[in-house]
């Protein structure tokens, strides 16, 4: 029985396989025939386009051959030559008609209809001036939409562009990449040595690391200057010669060589008044005298915005330790491509790379453009980042929304030209021809908008002070966001895309079947074109999004204003504290010295810090002083923290938590009660049992509200060994771990010994008018250590950091978006109203003649627009409520909605007023309609 079953099964399977294989064969055959057919059609069409005149000439010759051959045959049959020729022509028929059919058979006729003429373009330009309001709004929408759509790809390309010093694109970074953590691994001295010896694809290699260096001026004050430790080869690779003196030389790198420095033009000009005798002067860098050997010309800012170049010592390059953030770059040998260099780098024998990071099987050596080396992007560039696609799609979606709205305006504009289109159709213009004409007109608009948008963005980018906007150092000198030729081409492509969406869709609707029929009716009183459901949906969506966006922007603005006075949210009386940040002079120099130098640095920092705190506490009015990595309201660093006992997979371990290393008296100095457990004490710094204090939000979110005391937490760093467990010894309230959302977010504090926090931030509790202490703080600090660099002291309640600037940028972006949307709503409603009224002039006239009150007539016409406004506003309120609801924090929700309720109301008001105004302006025309005139007009 089993045998029988097996046999049946096997025959079944065989049958199935046979049928399947025949099916696949059939499919393959038809697919290949389809492909062949498509290729043949494309080839024939291309020939038709490319050598149109040849094709036409051949067609004429072939017809002539036919007619002559037929005439010959007729002559053979005994007909006289002339009669035969006439007969042959008659039989063949009208050659032009045949040629027309032949063109259609070749697919060329469609092409002919699509052909644009200058008339279309001229019409497009005339349309711009004929409807100026509509042009203004459409250009506004597209001039913002197109650059927005362009931006993500533009940034991705800018990052990969070659250095300005490298027009031939021959400079490449060499780095090690850890694919698991998706981050670069700093190469060590052995790697640099190995690459220098083995790589023939590079004519020379250089190493560098950026550092902030304290430069003392003549009056003994120090200021931080961005500089870099570089190998002498960097000047040769970049091909720039100094303006004064010499560049760094290989000899300067030697152990024991005199300390020298090359300075930048800006530093030379700003600090040394372009002293012509600069070369040979001595500068104290971090307290160590360095001789200036050269001044670089203006514009030399390698690697980002640096102004000082100190030799990278051989002992750093040959030492056992790994200098932090060492980066390597090189110039490709002539004739070597980047791909070849990459292949060679990959094949460098790992066996010979003992002690080097290259020996680590996990890391991948890569040859990458300089920008990717500097920023630490994966090899694929920004495009390969998972978020990139999202942003690109979002940007294109915004453009699509703008196009949708412009399409509505084009629809209205085109509908008013109904008679012109009817005449053109009557004169033989095909539907395709009219669609093409409307497309060409829209294209004029889109190209104009793209040009204005791109030029405006270029102009704005050239004037934005990025340092002011972001609070960070300015953009690297090589990152040029200016508009390139390539970006222009892409902008044009987007303009064509926009014109297709905004022009072709309404054109197809207007030339649709119903309209075609209506065109044929000579006595049609009006076009019969109606705004459809799509238009209504668009207006409703515009109104909804405008309300939400305006509410969000207003809410953010409201919040930004209240941040200043939000001490109760921060949990600390921020206006009573003066915040001071200082850096010790040796920072930047210590990288060269290894562990001993590091220890010395710590000791000096500890001593400076302790002396400074003591001196400040002795000042009258100062109640307390504390030191921390980040003070309340400042952006606390986010670190991944794992709670003991939460078992998750390796990759998902830990949650990002705002953290700060603080000195032992931190909470006391800030008048913060410890809600449970205890504060830090000095024993915590010495013992082997690390401790931590968490805030109440941490207890709620990471510990699920259970008793925090005695729980253990540790820091998780991807790709590194886990840190030790810290025992939670206390719980505090929220102290504001950032400026935007000070009362939210879990936070964790760990104690730090003096000398381990750098740059050190001091919170000085002064009470009233803390800013008055600022000059005294400067004096005290200069007295303690004149080489210390001090950031301008600022009252803690006025500190603004990264998140603040992000918020400003977001609010600005939202305001712009809101502006675009409101303009679109207004123009959309206006266009619809104007159009409806011109379409219904006769109806209005009749109604008025029959005695209907004008108000009622107005209301009838307005009803549709008002309904759309109402529905849109309701949806907008719902959308705003949805956005403002924080799914994470239940308690915050009500306060936020309360705070933002007014914003939503105001937003509805703004959009409503503009919407109603857009209705009323055309509605006034209804009242002006004279019955008799209206009836006569269309009669």
């Amino acid at each position: 029985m089993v045998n029988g079953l097996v046999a049946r099964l096997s025959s079944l399977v065989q049958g199935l396989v046979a049928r399947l294989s025949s099916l696949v064969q059939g499919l393959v055959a038809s697919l290949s025939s389809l492909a062949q057919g498509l290729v043949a059609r494309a080839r024939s069409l291309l020939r038709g386009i490319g050598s149109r005149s040849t094709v036409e000439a051949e067609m004429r010759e072939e017809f002539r051959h036919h007619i002559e051959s037929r005439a010959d045959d007729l002559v053979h049959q005994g007909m006289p030559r002339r009669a035969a020729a006439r007969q042959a022509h008659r039989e063949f028929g009208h050659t032009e008609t045949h040629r027309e059919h032949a063109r259609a058979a070749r697919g060329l006729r469609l092409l002919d209809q699509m052909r644009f003429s200058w008339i279309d373009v001229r019409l497009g330009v005339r349309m711009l001036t004929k409807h100026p309001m509509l042009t203004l709004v459409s250009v506004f929408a597209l001039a913002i939409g197109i650059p927005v759509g362009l931006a993500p790809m533009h940034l991705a390309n800018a990052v990969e562009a070659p250095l300005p010093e490298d027009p031939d694109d021959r400079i490449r970074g060499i780095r090690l990449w850890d694919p698991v953590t998706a981050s670069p691994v700093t190469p060590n001295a052995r790697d640099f040595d190995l690459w220098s010896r083995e790589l023939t694809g590079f004519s020379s290699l250089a190493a560098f690391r950026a550092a902030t260096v304290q430069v003392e001026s003549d009056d003994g004050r120090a200021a931080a200057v961005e500089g870099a430790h570089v190998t002498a080869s960097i000047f040769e690779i970049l091909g720039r010669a100094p303006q004064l003196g010499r560049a760094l030389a290989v000899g300067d790198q030697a152990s024991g060589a005199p300390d020298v420095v090359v300075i930048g033009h800006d530093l030379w000009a700003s600090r040394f008044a372009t002293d012509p005798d600069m070369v040979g002067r001595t500068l104290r860098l971090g307290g160590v005298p360095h001789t200036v050997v050269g001044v670089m010309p203006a514009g030399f800012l390698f690697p980002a915005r640096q102004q000082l170049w100190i030799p990278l010592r051989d002992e750093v390059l040959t030492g056992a330790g790994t200098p932090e953030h060492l980066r390597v770059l090189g110039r490709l040998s002539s004739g070597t491509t980047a791909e070849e260099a990459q292949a060679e780098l990959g094949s460098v024998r790992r066996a010979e790379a003992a002690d080097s990071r290259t020996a680590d099987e996990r890391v991948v050596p890569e040859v990458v453009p300089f920008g990717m080396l500097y920023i630490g992007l994966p090899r694929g560039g920004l495009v390969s980042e998972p978020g990139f696609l999202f942003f690109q799609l979002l940007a294109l979606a915004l453009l699509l929304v703008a196009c949708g709205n412009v399409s509505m305006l084009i629809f209205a504009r085109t509908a008013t030209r109904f008679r012109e289109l009817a005449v053109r159709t009557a004169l033989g213009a095909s539907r395709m021809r009219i669609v093409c004409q409307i497309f060409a007109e829209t294209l004029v608009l889109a190209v104009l908008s793209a040009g204005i948008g791109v030029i405006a963005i270029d102009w704005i980018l050239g004037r934005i002070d990025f340092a002011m906007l972001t609070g960070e150092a300015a953009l690297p000198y090589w990152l040029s966001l200016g508009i390139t030729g390539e970006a222009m081409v892409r902008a044009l492509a987007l303009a064509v895309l926009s014109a297709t969406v905004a022009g072709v869709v309404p054109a197809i609707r207007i030339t649709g079947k119903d309209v075609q029929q209506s065109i044929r009716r000579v006595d049609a009183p009006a076009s019969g074109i109606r705004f459809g459901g799509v238009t209504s949906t668009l207006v409703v969506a515009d109104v909804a999004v405008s309300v939400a966006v305006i509410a969000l922007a207003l809410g953010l603005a409201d919040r930004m204003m209240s941040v200043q006075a939000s001490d109760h949210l921060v949990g600390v009386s921020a206006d009573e504290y003066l915040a001071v940040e200082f850096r010790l002079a040796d920072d930047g120099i210590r990288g060269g010295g290894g562990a001993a130098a590091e220890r010395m640095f710590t000791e000096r920092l500890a001593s400076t810090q302790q002396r400074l705190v003591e001196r400040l506490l002795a000042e009258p009015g100062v109640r307390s002083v504390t030191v921390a990595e980040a003070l309340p309201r400042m952006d606390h660093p986010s670190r991944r923290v794992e709670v003991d006992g939460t078992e998750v997979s390796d990759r998902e371990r830990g949650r990002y938590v705002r953290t700060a290393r603080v000195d032992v008296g931190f909470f006391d100095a800030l008048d913060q009660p410890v809600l449970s457990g205890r504060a830090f004490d000095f024993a915590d710094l010495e013992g082997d049992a690390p401790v931590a204090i968490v805030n109440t939000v941490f207890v709620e979110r990471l510990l699920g509200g259970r008793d925090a005391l005695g729980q253990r937490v540790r820091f998780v760093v991807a790709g590194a060994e886990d840190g030790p467990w810290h025992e939670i010894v206390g719980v505090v309230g929220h102290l504001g771990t950032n400026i935007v959302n000070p009362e939210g977010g879990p936070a964790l504090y760990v104690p730090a010994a003096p000398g381990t926090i750098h740059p050190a931030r001091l919170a000085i509790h002064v009470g009233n008018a803390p800013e008055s202490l600022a000059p005294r703080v400067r004096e005290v600090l200069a007295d303690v250590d004149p080489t210390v660099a001090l950031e301008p002291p600022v009252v803690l309640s006025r500190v603004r950091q990264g998140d603040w600037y992000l918020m400003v940028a977001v609010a600005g972006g939202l305001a712009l978006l809101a502006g675009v949307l409101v303009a679109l709503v207004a123009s959309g409603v206006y266009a619809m109203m104007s159009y409806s009224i011109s379409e219904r002039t006769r109806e209005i006239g009749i109604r008025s003649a029959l005695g209907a009150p004008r108000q009622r007539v107005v209301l009838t016409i307005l009803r549709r627009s008002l309904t759309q406004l109402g529905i849109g506003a309701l949806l907008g309120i719902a959308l705003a409520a949805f956005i403002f609801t924080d799914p994470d924090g239940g308690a915050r929700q009500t306060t936020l909605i309360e705070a933002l309720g007014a914003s939503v109301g105001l937003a509805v008001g703004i959009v409503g007023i503009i919407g109603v105004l857009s209705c009323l302006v055309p509605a006034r025309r209804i009242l002006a309609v004279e019955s008799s005139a209206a009836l006569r007009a269309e009669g």
Partner: protein
Amino acid sequence: MTDKADILPGTLDLLILKAVSLGEVHGYGVLLRIERVSGGALAIQQGALYPALYRLEHQGLIRSEWGRSENNRRAKFYRLTPEGRRRFGEEKASWKRLSDAMALTLTATPQEV
């Protein structure tokens, strides 16, 4: 001309493919060949011939080349491509099935119903 049959719609392509399959031929030759092999029964509208030829060429079923005709005039000669040959086979089989079915239907007697 009256005894000539009209060509059924959709059969012109098949006739041209057949004419071209018999050997390289120019446009006027296609016309003559169809008339000749059908014994003069099938006549093609001269105007319809060229659009059909261009359509078949556009689809990659026939290919053309310039050469010299029998009366020493420059003429464009058409020949079947492999794809055209395959399509011709298919169309022929399909036509055969249709005409057999038509013949069977039209010759049916009351007894067969």
